[in-house]
């Protein structure tokens, strides 16, 4: 089952979910006792729905938690009724794959029937964030496959979040993932602080909400007040605090590549690889696919056959200098009246005004090469941010719309200290770096080359944030 097939209905449902959710970590609690919310430093917990969940929810509520029930869709109505009576904060609906098509209707009915209960839809198909090697443990030994030297494979949830985030601007995506404990000893040993920290850093950097699954051992040890467990959790808490603090202002993402996913099934993996290659992209909503919505974009990747209305937008975008990549878009289009400027087995390249339209005739069977092709199509001078020698790191650029200041979120999936070389479009007099481990803020020395600011972040361990200000922004008093 492709992740895209699971994704589309879930994304549609997200648009119907509650507004105004903050960028938060919810802890999924599965044990019968829990420490006080004040100690845990996380105020919201998600409890998988069961017959005795209500009793535990009330006990947790008494300890200071806002409690959400995670419920299968078919039990949502009965649970909602009980939740409304018991003062439960809300329900997180986890539709199965088969239920996703009908979940929107059920959600609307629930909202009307229980206006005081918050309802959210969970993207339960997140991935454990990590850097992966190639070795696959199998029952009969170790299976290997050789290749040309491979870049580190990074499992990230950026595509999942971006597809949800930009399609449905009225709420933050909420996702969860299951730890890969296929190895029994790994399962027995559980996870260390760095694993939880990376998961939190990733969700925080992507401005998404996360239901974090804690190992049974850690939950039990925390509930039993075991000092070692609390030492681990105190480390994790720094990340919860850091990313909660950073998410308050909700800046907008910065991108030069626009993505239209008419066919999310076919687009998920290419978008995932674009994310992995640090291509700053934005998934367009219906209202964004317009001439004004594409302003400032360099490349438009369009994953379906264009409608008549969109054909005009595409032509306008190319005429003004943009590059359009149409994937599997069979049909007759105005730009085809000219001879292709270039032709290959699967692609025709048409010159349109100052720009070009590239028609790719098939499905994308090699998303890695496709993503690298998109990077090559981006004009260097319009690329918002580049990283060098940092193949295990993702960067997500944001702009604060009130101040125009740029913020870069860095996530290092290797979880080992890494020196990261960064190039940001524009001239910034002040470059400051903060991280959960080191706090705020270390001043970095910028250099200026060809319209870009360059600097080195000397020590990215798991996650961190770079603040860039121009000379005039630097001189302004700090705004609240």
């Amino acid at each position: 089952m492709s992740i895209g097939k699971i994704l589309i209905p879930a994304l549609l449902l997200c648009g119907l979910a509650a507004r105004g959710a903050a960028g938060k970590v919810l802890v999924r609690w599965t044990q019968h006792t829990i420490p006080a919310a004040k100690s845990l430093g996380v105020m919201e917990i998600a409890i998988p729905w069961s017959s005795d969940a209500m009793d535990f929810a009330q006990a947790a509520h008494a300890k200071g938690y806002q409690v959400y029930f995670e419920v299968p869709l078919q039990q949502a109505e009965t649970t909602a009724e009980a939740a409304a009576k018991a003062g439960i904060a809300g329900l997180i609906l986890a539709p199965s794959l088969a239920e996703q098509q009908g979940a929107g209707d059920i959600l609307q009915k629930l909202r009307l029937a229980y206006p005081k209960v918050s309802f959210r839809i969970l993207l339960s198909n997140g991935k454990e964030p990590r850097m992966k090697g190639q070795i696959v443990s199998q029952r009969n030994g170790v299976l290997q496959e050789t290749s040309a030297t491979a870049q580190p494979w990074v499992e990230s949830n950026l595509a999942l979040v971006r597809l949800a985030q930009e399609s449905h601007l009225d709420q933050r995506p909420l996702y969860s993932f299951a730890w890969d404990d296929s190895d029994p000893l790994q399962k027995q040993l559980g996870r260390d602080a760095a694993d939880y920290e990376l998961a939190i850093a990733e969700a925080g950097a992507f401005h998404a909400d996360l239901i974090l699954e804690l190992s049974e051992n850690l939950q039990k040890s925390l509930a039993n007040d075991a000092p070692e467990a609390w030492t681990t959790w105190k480390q994790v808490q720094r990340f919860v605090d850091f990313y909660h603090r950073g998410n308050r202002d909700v800046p907008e993402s910065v991108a030069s590549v626009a993505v239209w996913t008419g066919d999310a099934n076919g687009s998920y993996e290419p978008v995932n690889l674009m994310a992995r290659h640090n291509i700053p992209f934005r998934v367009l909503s219906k209202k964004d696919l317009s001439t004004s919505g594409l302003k400032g974009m360099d490349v438009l990747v369009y994953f379906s056959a264009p409608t008549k209305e969109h054909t005009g937008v595409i032509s306008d975008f190319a005429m003004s200098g943009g590059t359009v990549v149409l994937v599997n878009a069979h049909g007759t289009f105005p730009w085809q009246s000219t001879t292709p400027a270039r032709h290959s087995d699967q692609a025709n390249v048409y010159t349109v005004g100052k720009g070009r339209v590239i028609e790719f005739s098939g499905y994308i069977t090699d998303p890695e090469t496709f993503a690298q092709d998109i990077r090559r199509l981006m004009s260097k001078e319009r690329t918002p941010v580049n990283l060098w020698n940092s193949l295990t790191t993702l960067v997500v650029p944001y702009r604060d719309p009130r101040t125009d200041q740029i913020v870069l979120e860095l996530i290092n999936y290797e979880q080992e200290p890494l020196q990261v070389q960064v190039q940001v479009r524009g001239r910034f007099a002040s470059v400051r770096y903060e991280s959960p481990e080191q706090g705020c803020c270390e001043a970095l020395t910028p250099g200026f080359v060809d319209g870009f600011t360059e600097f080195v972040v000397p020590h990215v361990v798991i996650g961190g944030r770079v603040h860039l200000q121009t000379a005039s922004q630097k001189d302004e008093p700090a705004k609240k």
Partner: protein
Amino acid sequence: MRWSRSSVAGLLLAVFNASSAAAPELTLQMFHKQKYIMGTVFEVVLYDTSAEHADQAMDAALEEIVRLDWVMSDYKPDSELNKLNRTAHFQAQKVSPDLYRVMTESLRYSKLSDGKFDVTIAPLADRWKAVLRGKPVPSAEEEQALRACVGYEKVELIPPDQIEFHSPCMRIDLGSIGKGYAVDRAAEVLRVHGIKIALINAGGSTFYGMGAPPGSAGWLVHLRDPSQKIDPQVTLCENTVSTSEQTPKSLLGNEPAGHIIDPADGLPLKTSYALSVVATSGTASDALSTTLLLVGPEKGKGLVEGIKDAAAIWVSAEGHTEMASTGPQIRTGGTSQGRSSTASSKQELCCTEK
């Protein structure tokens, strides 16, 4: 505990210490560790009876590769190689034993291949890497100027430890041999730590198999198959395999480029083959993989015939294969196509000894 850092797989095998009937039964466990080095992920898998000992051995092996990255990196400005690249045009430079050894090996393969394998390709390779990042292809004049910087004959090794360049714009790139050398050194470190069964993976392009996992004849490695029809395989036991393949063609009809440059014409190699080569060391298989991809199967088979205990397979995107072997077996689709049955016996013997 992260799987990515260090963990123990579920394959637990009881082994009996034959030296003493009274000795306690030990449990042989499989351990795994990975680290990002040289722009890729190096992985070590090994079998041992002690988690602590295994951890120490894996750390030491990976640290050895980190150390060698500081010797051979062309990305780190302060690496020993980059210092050499900045200074060896002026006068002979004293270098570390590692750098001298890997340069000696490099020049040996350059001579063996009549210059097809050439670590002085850096000026051209870097220019074509820039094309992969979106820069225009070099003009004929630019290309000619860059080609003048290339040529292994312009590198002089002065025993026991000095290197001099006889070209003002020469630069060395050890990308086609360095990871293989690092794998060899890491294997040595594991041996020093008493490890007898291990697999080292350098980003998928070179694997080193030490000994054999319990109950098997060696480490089964599937080889790169761009056709997805052939499924070539090799069982490693005290030997290595490396794979080379040109950068995949652009899907969108962008300008052709590639990271493997043919020194003969200074242009990215055009081939649809993926090449895998088995040899007795990572240094050899890494260097040979680039060499044999560049020379192609016709000449490459002859080269393989002259190398002891080597085997190679070229697999095209269409599923056409060419093979050569002086010992090790490369099987395809579950059938053995190595020409030497004695190679098979030898491999099993090797692994039986462990």
